């Protein structure tokens, strides 16, 4: 049995044309991701000491600022959905058996949802000065310091 993929640009769809919205989402999220990811790489890998400076205290400092919490939250959601939908397209291209395609597509979206929930919880329930931290690993603004 072959797989039916709706043409994204068909003019009068009978039902909601999800392929069309997927196609538009890839482009809209792509534009935003250029800004989000280039900004992420610039602050984390270019400024200061780059990769050398990345540790718990660095992340603690960034996520004490709502600006970076929102930045990373947007990047998390947009990139995971963009990447997962892109992988779904690739699965549609190569998985010829319906059961294989359905299973892979299900695994992709389940993984995507799990990581979005995990990442979102981490960004908002994160404590930059946890009681279980050795003092020298904590950011400089922690009272324990």
């Amino acid at each position, binding site marked *: 049995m072959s797989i039916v993929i709706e043409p994204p640009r068909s003019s009068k769809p009978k039902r909601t044309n999800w392929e069309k919205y997927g196609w538009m989402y890839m482009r809209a999220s*792509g534009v935003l991701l250029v800004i989000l*990811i280039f900004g992420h790489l610039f602050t984390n890998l270019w400024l200061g000491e780059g990769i050398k400076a990345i540790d*718990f205290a660095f*992340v603690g400092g960034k996520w004490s600022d709502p600006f970076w919490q929102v930045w990373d939250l947007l990047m*998390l959601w947009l990139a*995971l959905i963009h990447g997962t939908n892109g992988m779904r397209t690739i699965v549609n291209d190569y998985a010829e058996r319906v059961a294989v395609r359905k299973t892979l597509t299900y695994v992709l979206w389940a993984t995507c949802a799990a990581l979005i929930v995990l*990442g979102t919880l981490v960004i908002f329930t994160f404590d930059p000065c946890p009681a279980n931290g050795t003092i020298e690993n904590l950011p400089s603004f922690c009272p324990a310091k």
Partner: protein
Amino acid sequence: MPSKPAGTLYRGKVGMWSWVLHRITGVAIFFFLLVHVLDTSLVRLSPEAYDAVIATYKTPLIGVAELGLVAAILFHALNGIRVILIDFWGKGAKYQNLMFWIVVVVAFVIFAAFAPRHLMHVFHLG
């Protein structure tokens, strides 16, 4: 003997190879992102757990592999803009070939600026 297909606008040319590269880089970035969300989530566990895992990102082997990741992101992002321009800009299709080479040059210039600085950090020089 099947004969070679006659020349087309797409096959074996910039249109096809940019698509192949876009697809391969997209898959590579996707799998890195899965790992990256997990390693970052360790901040929620303990500072020690996070610092221990992030230390692997600073080893020479992974440090050099990060250059490959940055190169993949540069190509995918810039070629993604090219794809969007082909779709929405009236002259996009006409200039797709030129835009591909602009993507390659811009990606290379940013990469050439980034690589030495990153290697300096990975190998503790300066």
